[in-house]
């Protein structure tokens, strides 16, 4: 739905040139993804390859899979009332036939991007971690 096309690239280019419009767009992205996924606006969205379970909502912000402390019932070790983000991600990815997505090595987060629009970065092609091409094996390119 959000895959880059000419219209999105044009929109992103226009937003990048118009700071006020970019602020409005970024606020809208924050509100939308915040309500739907608990988005923390890290600026480097992994949702498409983590079954739309946000790894930033993990208390350890783990991007490459679950820690070893997941409860037998799939609960988070830090907040036992919550289900482990990665248990949810694995369930969804398996259901959707996207389990291979979880094998991608995710680069460390670039903290300079915190608060920025991940969608604009994605459409402008300056965030290679957002959606690694499925043909690239199970290995993303190196950390940025």
């Amino acid at each position, binding site marked *: 739905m959000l895959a880059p096309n000419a219209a999105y690239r044009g929109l992103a280019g226009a937003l990048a040139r118009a700071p006020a419009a970019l602020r409005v767009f970024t606020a809208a992205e924050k509100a939308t993804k915040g309500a739907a996924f608990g988005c923390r606006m890290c600026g480097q969205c992994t949702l498409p390859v983590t079954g739309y379970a946000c790894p930033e909502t993990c*208390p*350890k*912000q*783990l*991007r*490459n*899979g*679950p*820690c*070893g*402390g*997941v*409860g*037998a*019932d*799939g609960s988070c*070790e*830090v907040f036992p009332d919550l289900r*482990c983000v*990665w*248990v949810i991600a*694995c*369930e969804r990815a*398996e259901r959707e036939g996207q*389990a291979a997505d*979880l*094998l991608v*090595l*995710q*680069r*460390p*987060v670039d*903290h300079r991007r915190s608060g920025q629009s991940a969608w604009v970065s994605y459409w402008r092609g300056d965030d*290679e971690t957002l959606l690694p091409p499925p043909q690239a*094996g*199970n*290995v*993303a*390119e*190196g*950390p*940025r």
Partner: protein
Amino acid sequence: MSVGVGLRARLASGAFAVTAEIGPPRGADPEALRRKVAPLAGCVDAVNITDNAGAHVRMASWAGSLVVAQAGAEPVMQLTCRDRNRLALQSDLLAASAVGIPNVLLMTGDHPKFGDHPDAKPVFDLDSVQLLWAARMMRDEGRLLSGRALSTRPAWLIGAVENPFAPPAGFRAARLAKKADAGAEFVQTQFVFDVPAFARWMAELSDLGIPERCRILAGVGPVRSLRALDHMRTSVPGLHIPGEVDRRLRAVPADQVAAEGLRICTEIIERLREIPGVSGVHIMAPGYEHGIPGILDRAGLAVPRDGEPGPQASGGFRGAAPPGQHWPQASGAQGGRPAGPARPAAPTLGSAGAH
């Protein structure tokens, strides 16, 4: 330390490896650490030094590793992502190699919530897979995460941890595969009490061809009392104790629990040695380090660890590892299992210089 001794040589030779684990003191006195290490020197291949285990402040693992080395044992320095950002992690890794620490074990770390400073800021700037990746790049490519070149490359063996028993069960083998892809050359696991579940995980790993690239050391340890049992059941995240083990420990008189715990531990080690692809055991016995030689004796693993070959691991690996390469290939099929699909080569770091 002469050639042929130590964890790297043990794992390359295919002999069954034994590591143990000790926690540094909550204090500035190295003597407590020396006392804990003394019975282990010469009877295990390496000794892990924990890094603020359970998010409780202790003497730093690099300093503990030096004390252990001075006491005659080979250290494995544990390093967690909980307390350091990527700058500190990389500088500590360089420091470890500079002072001669031959092995590092890279892990995410327990959340501060469970420790003695629950008010601390959790860092988790990198996750364990990213840290393994950074370490491998530092050693094999001589570069930092930023892409900047190192004047001298570090030389440690890179280890990881895994819990085969925690959900999502279907992802645990794949998760270790990610760690092996990132750079892990050996892994130590959470306590194994459920041997059939561990064997299923090992079979998945063998299908993925992991034991040839990343040696598997199974975590074991004796339950010394019912209080310890309850603590492990309720307070150790991700630990699974099957009902059979629980029943055996509760069925004996109170003064027999420790002995029964040792029997169970010994039996588990013996069963683990039969599982294809298991390269060794990692013994965790906090407060009972002095009993580890006895456990090894009962399990038939009390061989001199001064370069003499010990009992062969189930995988039957032969020869020495070429420098900077994967472990030597198995001499035959791994316990009759197919080699499994080829895995992609370890990741390269492409645009790392783009910062």
